[in-house]
């Protein structure tokens, strides 16, 4: 075989060598399509958006020219810092509410779920079987003044007639908390489920009380899950505008609403791009902190 095709033969590629080249290329060929797709439609647009935020656009023609116009950021921040603070506040409050609501149920399913674990997990996921927008609209019906809940409570005089929630900040936070609860509960469940029960038993064997076992064994081992839950809940909430648009009033605008309006209504691309860039930077801070502390691959366990 070696003699038939010398190694330095110009066009001589034996089937075997062809296969070897193919084998060497295999990982690149397998990852090329996804890589190109993510490069062209995920990374390039992000870079493009950052550059767009430094351009000046003429409002009449929509044509943009690169101007290294950093002033866009400061003017957008001074215009919309209130919306940023509102988003931060709503997202943080709703995330904390979700963590508090979902920790006990995640704990119960992980430690006492038994054979019905899958059923309970399905129950946690049940909101996802209804479209996100419809879920939010249904909350509008739940919280409406004459809706099934408030209407009934007012009818039996448990609530004063003038009581209302819809249009307030509480309605927005309630909607956010409901819509994103599974994103919080599942990572917590995964973290609790993965705790090695023998470690816990070892603690009890060493005379740890139930409370000490919980505080010194279960809690520390759940911290990565809590962090993952925070990341997967807080970041999408921070950019959410559907809950605010449907459940909120006119005074509690979130930053997502502003970005969406600038891109789709006022067509102020430079302004929208710089606000998105700020939002992305805030999110990236959390993302990098997470990757640094826990490693980027760990997020996959919690999905």
């Amino acid at each position, binding site marked *: 075989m070696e003699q038939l095709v010398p190694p330095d033969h110009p066009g001589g590629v034996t089937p075997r060598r062809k296969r070897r080249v193919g084998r*060497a290329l*295999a*990982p690149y060929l*397998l*990852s090329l399509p*996804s*890589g190109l797709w*993510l490069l062209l*439609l*995920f990374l390039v*647009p992000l870079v*493009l*958006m950052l550059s*767009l935020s430094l351009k000046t656009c003429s409002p009449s023609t*929509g044509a943009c020219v690169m101007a290294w116009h950093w002033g866009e950021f400061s003017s957008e921040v001074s215009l919309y810092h209130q919306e940023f603070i509102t988003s931060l506040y709503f997202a943080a409050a709703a995330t904390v509410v979700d963590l508090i*609501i979902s920790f*006990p*149920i995640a704990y*119960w399913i992980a430690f*006492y779920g038994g054979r019905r674990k899958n059923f309970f997990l*399905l129950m*946690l*996921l*049940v*909101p*996802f*079987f*209804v*479209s996100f*927008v*419809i879920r939010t*609209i*249904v909350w509008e*019906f*739940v919280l*409406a003044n*004459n809706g*099934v809940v408030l209407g009934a409570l007012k009818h039996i005089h448990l609530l004063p007639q003038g009581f209302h929630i819809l249009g307030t900040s509480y309605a927005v936070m309630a909607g956010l908390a*409901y819509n994103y609860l599974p994103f919080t509960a599942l990572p917590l469940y995964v973290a609790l489920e993965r705790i090695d029960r023998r470690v816990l038993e070892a603690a*009890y*064997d060493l005379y740890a009380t*139930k409370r000490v076992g919980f505080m010194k064994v279960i809690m520390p081992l759940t911290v990565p899950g809590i962090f993952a839950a925070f*990341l*997967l809940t807080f970041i999408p909430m921070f*950019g*959410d505008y*559907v809950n605010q*648009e449907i459940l909120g009033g006119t005074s509690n605008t979130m930053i997502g609403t502003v*970005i*969406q309006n600038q*891109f*789709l209504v006022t067509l102020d*691309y430079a302004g929208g791009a710089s606000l998105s860039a700020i939002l*992305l930077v805030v*999110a990236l801070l959390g*993302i990098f902190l*997470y*990757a640094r502390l826990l490693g*980027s691959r760990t997020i*996959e366990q919690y999905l």
Partner: protein
Amino acid sequence: MTVLDQPTVSTPESPVSKRRRWARFVLPTYSWLVIAYLVFPIIVMIFYSFNKTIGSMQLVSFSWNGFTSQWYHQWSNVPGLTASFWLSIRLALVSTLIATVLGTMLAIALVRYRPPRFRGKGAFEQVIFLNIAAPEIVMGASLLGLFVTFNIGRGFLTLVLAHVMFSIAYVTVTVRARLAGFDTALEEAAYDLGATPAVTFTRVTLPLIMPGVLAGALMAFAISIDDFVTSNFLSGTSVPFPVWVYGATRVGIPPQVFVFGTAIFTVGIGFAILSIVLARKKA
């Protein structure tokens, strides 16, 4: 009731009754309340899909006007809504198909090969993580910026491009999780028996990773059909179901929206229960 640190073997907690109260009563009651909280809005949705409307506009109202199953008989009476629903189904099918193939290929590359043979593996991991964790509004807005910059008309094509983009990472992660315990000796055996790479892949590899691929495809389908934020930026003339429903909130919601919601819920939960039952039978 403070019994001091009694060393017991099976139940290490000292006050047994107290522990039982927590595990047997407080936690389950609380958990069922949370489940009720999660299920309640869905019951409200089904409830309102049977609500009569007042006036000639045929739009749902907050108040209860009496029972009717009219909207189920006239489920396709709102042309825009029905069209958007079928568009969403088509969009989800096409983008799921593409994302599943691409994501599975990437997952195989990431599981099989390490840096000396696969340079850039680390970069792929980072991009996948970033793609999952990045806020969707930023991805949607930046894609809109891209399409506007290059003058690409918004429609079904741009929707497919975007949906595949945010589904790939989820498919890859799901498939890779199932691929972790894959026994490569089976493939070696096929080669030793004279199978070509193509035959080995279709007859050995693919059947073995199929459950993972199916799970990834289901994930991609669910994400695509429910996507609002990105689709709202890119829909242009072809409007998917969630975008249509969102647009309707400004002018009034036809009761058929809740009929579609109930139908999607029933089909989805039916599949989920079926898979749980099947898994239990196998075990």
